[in-house]
């Protein structure tokens, strides 16, 4: 008992988050019943796609957002408001553009009443640790992305937090810069040169999670919940080409593209996900066709390994998964154990000309996306053959958050336009059958 109290640095207990709309009505939850723990000396990665609530969870842990339900404790102390024990590194760097590097690093301690000379000592040490010597008087505008994020790290370290929170810290950087920063950070961590006890990072990059974390928590989407927990036991320094590393990456890809187990009893969400409540990601029809063509062509010849495909198309899982899932939904391709495989229709689609493709995709959308057939039915029933978008938006919001509803509506407009199922007028926000003749 005493033992766990010492080593458990973070305890997230049954946290749920529901964002209410302007009118105070509760909507579909963003996070649902999330519990997790972190031990001292651990790097934990929260892996999930955009909209899985992973950034929200990070903000709840930092105390920036109050959860609707559940509690967060850091070293046994409940978090109530922005916590002193954590510091955050942002995806967008979030540096004050009007302050130079030194001022940006010093602003935290100075605002919290640390004496000036003590602040200066700590700031210079952090700047030195993170490799920013010589840039003290530069303004963020003058720095490259990598250097800016180093300022972001220094600014967090100078607060001497117990837990370092990182919100996709490398995703705004180019590949080379990101890799340098990752290894630098890992080196500092391994050598114990950072005054922190644990790191919690949010990412949508599977390889990044496997490279850095001791434990990976995979979040599912809509609503966000912890789907699985994967310990990473590969010793540091980890090599991306190491077979063990590859296997684990492959395994996580398979896990994240797995279809819901049909033997499990259907939950409310699962029931919704087959009707109108099916949330659609916003994908371009050009990308869908491009992906089908890529999978059909050598070396894949109709069946592609997801990590390889992600590599060769230069796509993050945030882009790859929505494409793959849309293809799967439309029965043009399907996931299989970390691979993606074309269906017979998918193979035929690749050889079609533009008009045939539009027809085929339109048919598939109508057959497999309940929202599309719903819109068409409403248009058919109405004497004017017109219907306002708000009608469908409100229906969608019964099942999902406002953002998801908007994205789904956008997606169906895009697919409907491409398949020539219906027209949509942006000015009047109405669906109709009227295309310019």
């Amino acid at each position, binding site marked *: 008992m005493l033992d766990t109290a010492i080593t458990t640095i973070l305890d997230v207990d049954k946290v749920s988050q529901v964002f*209410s709309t*302007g*009118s*105070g009505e509760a909507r579909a939850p963003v996070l649902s019943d999330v519990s997790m723990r972190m031990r001292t000396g651990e790097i934990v990665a929260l892996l999930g796609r955009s909209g899985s609530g992973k950034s929200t969870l990070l*903000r709840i842990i*930092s*105390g*920036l*957002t*109050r959860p609707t339900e559940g509690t967060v404790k850091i070293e046994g102390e409940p978090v109530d*408001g*922005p916590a*002193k024990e*954590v*510091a*955050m590194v*942002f*995806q*967008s760097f*979030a540096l*004050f*553009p*009007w302050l130079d590097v030194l001022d940006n690093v010093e*602003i*935290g301690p*100075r*605002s*919290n*009443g640390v004496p000036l000379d003590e602040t200066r000592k700590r700031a210079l040490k952090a700047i030195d640790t993170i490799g920013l010597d010589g840039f003290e008087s530069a*303004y963020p*505008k*003058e720095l490259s992305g990598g250097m800016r994020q180093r300022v972001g790290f220094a600014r967090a370290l100078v*607060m001497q937090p117990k837990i370092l929170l990182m919100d996709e810290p490398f995703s705004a950087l180019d590949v080379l810069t990101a890799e340098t920063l990752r290894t630098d950070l890992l080196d500092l961590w391994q050598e114990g040169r950072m005054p922190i006890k644990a790191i919690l990072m949010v990412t949508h990059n599977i390889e990044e999670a496997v490279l850095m974390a001791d434990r990976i928590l995979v979040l599912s989407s809509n609503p966000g919940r912890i789907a699985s927990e994967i310990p990473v036991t590969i010793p540091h320094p980890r090599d991306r080409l190491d077979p063990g590393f590859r296997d684990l990456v492959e395994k996580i890809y398979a896990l994240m593209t797995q279809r819901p187990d049909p033997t499990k009893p259907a939950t409310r969400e699962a029931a919704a996900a087959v009707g109108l409540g099916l949330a659609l990601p916003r994908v371009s029809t050009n990308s869908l066709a491009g992906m089908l063509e890529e999978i059909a062509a050598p070396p894949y010849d109709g069946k592609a390994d997801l990590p390889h495909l992600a590599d060769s198309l230069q796509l993050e899982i945030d882009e790859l998964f929505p494409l793959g899932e849309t293809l799967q939904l439309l029965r043009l391709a399907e996931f299989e154990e970390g691979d993606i495989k074309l269906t017979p229709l998918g193979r035929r689609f690749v050889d079609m000309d533009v008009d045939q493709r539009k027809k085929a995709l339109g048919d598939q959308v109508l057959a497999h996306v309940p929202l599309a057939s719903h819109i068409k039915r409403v248009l058919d029933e109405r004497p004017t053959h017109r219907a306002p978008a708000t009608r469908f938006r409100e229906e969608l919001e019964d099942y999902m958050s406002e953002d998801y509803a908007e994205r789904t509506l956008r997606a169906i407009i895009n697919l409907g336009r491409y398949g020539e199922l219906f027209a949509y007028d942006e*000015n009047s926000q109405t669906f109709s059958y009227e295309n310019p003749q």
Partner: protein
Amino acid sequence: MFNSIASAGRRALPNQWDLIAFAAILAILTAIAKSYHGISAPLPAPSESPISLDYWQLPYYALRTTLRMFAALVASLIFTFTYATLAAKSRRAEMILIPVLDILQSVPILGFLSFTVTFFLNLFPGNTMGAELAAIFAIFTSQAWNMAFSFYQSLRTVPRDLDEVARGFRLSGWQKFWQLEAPFAMPGLIWNTMMSMSGGWFFVVAAEAITVGDTTIALPGVGSYIAKANDAGDWSAIGAAVLTMGIVILLYDQLLFRPIVAWAAKFRVELSVSEDVESSWVLNLIKRTHWLRLGSAPVLAALRSISLWSVRFPTILRAQKTSEQPSRLLDAIWILIVIAVAAWAAWLTISYIATELSWDEVGRVFVLTFYTLLRVIVLMLLATLVWVPISVWIGLRPRWAEAVQPIAQFLAAFPVNLLFGAAVSLVLAYNLNTNIWLSFLIVFGTQWYIVFNTIGGAAAFPNDLREAAANFRIRGWRWWTQVMIPAIAPYYLTGAITASGGSWNASIVAEYVKWKDHTVVAQGVGSYIAEATEKGDFPRIVLGVAMMSLFVTLFNRLFWRQLYAYAERRLRL
């Protein structure tokens, strides 16, 4: 029900909050007017005007006027920092403050001059202090609203990640204000301050020399000088006043605003280094001086320490908008109080007008306001037809644009009063119809807003679109309607909205023109207000201003706002 009231504040159509704001403003004016009647202290009799047309007096007058303008500017900044901050931080305050500000921004402030003048004169009877304060207040009313609005909008759009950093580091309200919110709002605030300074001249001229009933004020200043020159019909004095104004504007632009703009470039939140860097020789000079920098270093360090004081704002200001559900009961009570006060205010205003004026009078003023509306619409159309093609031509030529844009901004500062001599002479010489020909005066000062905004829009037109238009040989009518007009629309509308508001204000001056002993009048609500002001006939002033405010507000909401919203949504590149 109450939520619909609460969230309606940002929609374009007039709503209940506007009515409430409207009533509140008019009630305050009525209260002032009543207090004027109530205080029966004799006002100073109209004495010999102390203003001399001697050229050598002009530098002194210019100094007095400039000081007045800066005093008003300081007041505007204080107002901005408090009012806009309160509106941005407190949801309940926001419900009232923003509609009020919105109305204040669009009503013709010049019409209120008579009220404020009497109010301040009564505060300091028999003392020039009252007159000075009245003038400063008049200038303040022309400067403050758009500054406050800009600041409020900046506060509402502080980037989320920077806000999270500030909260994550547990900055107090005071610290966050000075470390994040004020710097972020700086570029917009500075731009609006410059525009305000320009617009202030119109009010200086109107406020320094004013007659309300038996009271005549003539404070030493450029405005009084122009008024006196108009009275005397002295052409060369008018010329001297123009020259003086030009020099003063150039001086404060070069010595104050340019350096501030160049310095404030660092507050812009953008990731890349912008191409055109503002520079200022004054700022460079200051940066190069050694002593000045040495001397100012401790001051700056002290200011920085002050900005880092960890004072917490009172809880009422820290009411969080996101996390906690607002109490509906409190909201309901608050809204009921506001409605009650507004209803009482409206009743007060109506009953005040009703004591002396009949419904016929209201009908007459309605017709007069309609004339002025017609005048504004026609003249805006004419100004658009003339200036848009010219401005586009200039804007597409970067060298020209660079030279002309500041000149147009400069011209916008010159008040219409400078043209009175020319207008009266022409009208009398050719026996012109005043209802038609005086109309041109109302866009004299305001057309420049259309010019420099349109130039800005055309200059920002992307080069690839220009090349595409040329490549596909899109010319003539089609080029205007499908390429250029959509591209400049958001910019043009920004200018046109300012110009339209300014024109309503100008009508109070421009429909009632005096030169030597001639008075030339155009039928309209502007001349109605001007005449009533001269006679000190307060019920008529209230009626005229209320009617004009109503027209302007509706015109803005139903026409300009809709157009602007459309342009922002569809045409912003």
